[in-house]
């Protein structure tokens, strides 16, 4: 287990270095990045001054090492629009994004697994066809459009749920105010449901299909036939024998799904005016606030890599074949 953990940790660090290298290089793809930091009316002297201040006149490798050193100290540059360090701005909005991602994950799992199992058990029937058709449609709808449609119908038409706004849960938790967090929860859920469902629909559909095919594969195997031949009840066969073995591909999938959901938030947060990192990125793009975009991308990637690492560890614990291969 430990050697596996160490090797995965090393791999994760390589990825993180690669991520910093890519974000660094992206900035320099346009030639001289100074022009991204100055207004169109800046004079040559001003530009030269800013170039020197930001260090863009130094050799590329020195700049990269400076950038990396800054990252390690938590200094990722100053936001151009907020006129303050970019990192605290991003970190402040991270909890709202995590709440949204967790809720989306919860919705995807809660619906995908039963739907996939029901479809597999009714293979070839109208129930199977119906669920799979819905899953196909769910994978074809752009998330931001679904969000807009939900706002129009459920929010504005029926007035069932609020169309924007946010009540924090994780932020008070982090401050140690557990009481506030619990008190906020019911109200927070009302605000979370629509955006979280919007983000999750794609994953929900994809996973329902995955659970179905994974179940079908397991159900056709000999040990399932043996279990049935022993005269076990169908419920026992499905839950105790088949489901246990159909689990694995689903767990792997769910880990990757986290990252996928995380990247879905950029667009969906914008639709629902959710005060998370996604909307921050959107605003930063519009204001050409390069350091803020860069910081957000690095933080997103870090969370993504760490989550993947975590899932791999859980996976390795669940299935010895993974860490021994």
């Amino acid at each position, binding site marked *: 287990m430990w050697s596996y953990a160490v*090797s*995965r940790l090393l*791999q*994760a660090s*390589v*990825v993180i270095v*690669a*991520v910093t290298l*890519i974000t660094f290089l*992206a900035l320099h*793809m*346009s030639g001289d*990045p100074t022009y*991204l930091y100055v207004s169109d009316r800046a004079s040559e002297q001003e530009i030269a001054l800013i170039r020197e201040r930001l260090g863009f006149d130094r050799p590329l490798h020195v700049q990269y090492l400076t950038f990396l050193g800054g990252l390690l100290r938590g200094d990722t540059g100053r936001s151009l629009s907020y006129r303050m360090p970019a990192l605290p701005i991003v970190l402040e909005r991270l909890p709202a994004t995590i709440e949204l991602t967790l809720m989306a994950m919860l919705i995807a799992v809660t619906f995908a697994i039963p739907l996939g199992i029901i479809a597999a058990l009714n*293979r070839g029937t109208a129930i199977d066809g119906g669920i799979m058709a819905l*899953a*196909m*449609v769910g*994978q*074809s*709808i*752009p998330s*931001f*459009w679904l969000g*807009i*449609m939900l706002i*129009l119908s459920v929010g*504005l038409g029926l007035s069932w749920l609020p169309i924007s706004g946010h009540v924090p849960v994780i932020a008070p938790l982090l401050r140690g105010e557990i009481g506030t967090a619990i008190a906020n929860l019911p109200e927070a859920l009302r605000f979370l449901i629509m955006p979280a469902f919007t983000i999750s629909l794609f994953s929900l*559909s*994809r996973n329902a*299909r*995955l659970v179905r*095919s994974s179940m*079908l*594969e397991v159900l056709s195997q000999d040990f399932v036939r043996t279990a049935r031949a022993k005269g076990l009840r169908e419920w026992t066969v499905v839950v105790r024998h088949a489901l246990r073995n159909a689990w694995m591909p689903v767990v*792997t*999938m769910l880990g*990757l799904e986290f990252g*996928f959901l*995380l*990247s879905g938030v*950029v*667009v969906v947060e914008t*639709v629902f005016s959710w005060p998370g990192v996604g909307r921050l*990125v959107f605003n930063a*793009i*519009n204001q*050409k606030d*390069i350091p803020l*975009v*860069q910081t957000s*991308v690095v933080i*997103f*990637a870090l969370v*993504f*890599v760490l989550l*993947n690492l975590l899932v*791999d560890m859980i*996976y390795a614990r669940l299935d010895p074949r993974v860490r021994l*291969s």
Partner: protein
Amino acid sequence: MTAPERPAPGPAAVNAAATGRPGPGGIARAWRSMTRKGWPLLAILILLAVGFAAVAGPSIAPKDPNRQNIIARLQAPMTPDRNGVVQHPLGTDGLGRDVLSRLIYGARVSLLVGLTAVMIGGVLGIVLGMVAGYFGGRIDAVIMRLADIQLAFPFILLAIMFLVVLGSGLLNLILILGVGQWVTYARIARAQTLSQREKEYVEAARALGARASSVLFKTILPNILAPLIVIASFNVASVILSEAALSFLGLGVPPTIPTWGGMLAESRDQLLAGRWWLAVYPGVAIALTVLSFNILGDWLRDHLDPRLRGVG
């Protein structure tokens, strides 16, 4: 130990060992299986319609998609003018532009970006994947490590980063979305090449003195194309979704070119006022196009690889 396999971008994983090619009479068989199921035929009809809109846009669009008309702004669909004539069957947007015409022109960017990006990613990925699988060793290790790194990084963020710095625009959009797809093809092409490499027909080609490039692309490639085509169909669907998302974020093509994603972005300002038609039509256009590519991919998979029929 490699990173866990990323799921195929399409609705279901494609069997990595799939090599079934339609034999003689393949077209007739394909037609029969398509018409029997109905859905694939419908999907192809929709795609043909979208393709027609993209190619013949200027001749079939009733109005200039960029012509603004402040007097006729925000008209609901089927609103008759003073003479009782419906000028804008799908209504007009905040600048008085004709929604139907913009919708027809929007097909261009979606299809163009979807198809060319997949082509770029497909060629790049297939070449790299086949080279990795065929030669193995260090080349293989380097290519596959690159793939792992790219998979460990949410692609849309990468696209955002590059587009913000390089500036948006059709070419940049296509290049970035295209390069973003290579890993999918590389992994499948590599696995397929590995399984074909030692087969007799490949050995025969080598024994006849064929060069490596000829063995790879003339001998092996035709035999591993089926699963790659299936992936490509699902992939066009997901690229179109990405393009729409990037256009929605304002990172797509310039606003003078109508796109479905851009139309949706503009519709946000009119949402609270209940101007539903601005949001409904472009969304339906994206969803139908993407759905059609997904259905097509599903059918292709069933058809090209009989072993998966009814399973995936």
